[in-house]
């Protein structure tokens, strides 16, 4: 909460939603989600170091409906943040700033993140079926 109640300029409530702002907001949101996702990475490494029982507990959590839901969300967040992060790095060196390029690349990373997430889970399901 701000310390003083200063007037604010109109914010996202009055703007038409467009890909330029959505990709930016999602980059931040997925970044925050991934920061929390590092807890699972840390837990998995600690469990792997601790022993078979701890590792089995982590694996059981990942197999539960909550664990699967979190993994689904985090895997998409990782794919999105990865592809849009690459887009940001290219923008940092001055590429892709023409409006049509900016919009096209926005759609490219958005759809690409879904495709990449699908590929990752296709690998998971194929392994589960084969094992």
């Amino acid at each position, binding site marked *: *909460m*701000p*310390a003083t109640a200063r007037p604010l300029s109109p914010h996202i409530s009055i703007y038409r939603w467009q890909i330029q702002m959505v990709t930016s907001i999602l980059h*931040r949101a997925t*970044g*925050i989600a*991934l*920061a929390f996702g*590092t*807890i699972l*990475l*840390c837990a998995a*490494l*600690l469990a*792997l*170091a601790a022993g*078979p029982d701890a*590792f*089995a507990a982590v694996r059981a959590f990942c197999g539960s409906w909550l664990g699967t839901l979190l993994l689904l969300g985090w895997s998409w967040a*990782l794919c999105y943040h*990865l592809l849009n*992060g*690459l887009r*940001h*790095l290219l923008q*940092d060196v001055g590429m892709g700033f023409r409006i049509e390029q900016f919009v096209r690349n926005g759609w490219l990373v958005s759809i690409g993140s879904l495709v990449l997430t699908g590929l*990752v889970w296709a*690998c*998971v399901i194929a*392994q*589960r079926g*084969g*094992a």
Partner: protein
Amino acid sequence: MSQLRTPLKKALGLGSAKHGVQHFITQRVTAVALLLLAGWFLWTVLSVLHLDYAGARALVAQPLNAVLMLAFVVAVFWHAQLGLQVVIEDYVHTHGLQIVLQIAVKFLCFLGAAASVLAVIRIALQG
């Protein structure tokens, strides 16, 4: 005496001389590191999923995988701290709360990185 000093000498080491963009650059350097490690990381996680405990441990214990995992956890917690710092700067406008949150995020990210590094070293050394 003072006019013998060049303007450059006066500027170096004062203010933000070349350090003002350090956060920006570190965020991007860790991003590039994570970008390079991302393919290996996804492959490792997918491989661990269909291995039993001994197999998963042996995979992470391989020297190359252990080194890359160390690099990954350091880069990921560093990048997370830098990113969360900007989010807090942008949205938390109460001075005291912002300081508390910034310090808490730094401490938690360091603890996460330290715990992960110790876990990888234990796995790597015990095989």
